[in-house]
């Protein structure tokens, strides 16, 4: 399972409240990612990190922020949750395939189901 733990696994919150999801990895991977999964859209990249304090935006970053203060933890924050952010959130790490630069494989956590009421 690539040593990825997401917490919490389920959360229900109210519109306008802040929410933080945590992704923890145990294998010292440099790259980490946050995706959201919605029916009909597959998974879409929210933010990613390429090292401690190095992050960048993905396809659907509006309304989300991230932080990575240490290698093993990548946090996703919804500053003020909205109903449109009801989704399943997945964290991923990537490993280089057979040491070939640029050829990476992503492995996913079990996901966090977030409901914003």
């Amino acid at each position, binding site marked *: 399972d690539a040593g990825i733990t997401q917490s919490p696994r389920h959360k229900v919150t109210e519109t306008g409240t802040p929410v933080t999801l945590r992704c923890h990895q145990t294998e010292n991977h440099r790259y980490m990612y946050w995706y959201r999964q919605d029916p*009909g859209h597959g998974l879409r*990249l929210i933010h990613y990190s*390429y090292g401690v304090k190095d992050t960048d935006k993905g396809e659907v970053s509006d309304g989300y922020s991230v932080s990575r203060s240490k290698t093993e933890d990548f946090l996703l924050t919804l500053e003020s949750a909205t109903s449109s952010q009801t989704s399943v959130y997945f964290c991923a790490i990537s490993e280089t395939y057979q040491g070939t630069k*640029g050829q990476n494989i992503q492995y996913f956590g079990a996901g966090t189901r977030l409901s914003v009421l």
Partner: protein
Amino acid sequence: AQSVTQPDIHITVSEGASLELRCNYSYGATPYLFWYVQSPGQGLQLLLKYFSGDTLVQGIKGFEAEFKRSQSSFNLRKPSVHWSDAAEYFCAVEGTTTDSWGKLQFGAGTQVVVTP
């Protein structure tokens, strides 16, 4: 614009029958290609990947996929489906340029139902 299309939202197949899931992409150059499977309530598991070389790729659980450059396709196949193959399947692509590394783009998924 870059895109990944899985034309079939839902497929029903009988146990023991063959299965083919379609994936088409639109990219400036041949991307890296992946198939993932997701069982209910679970995360995504990598079935197989294509980086270069042999266009017929073998994966886990008896799956294979064939990359066809001329058709911009990467279709997934299994000769004989088992009930445990019921799941959602996602095709994903990643550009090969440095600014595309790690930015997987997913298709919408195909839900596979297996009947007795």
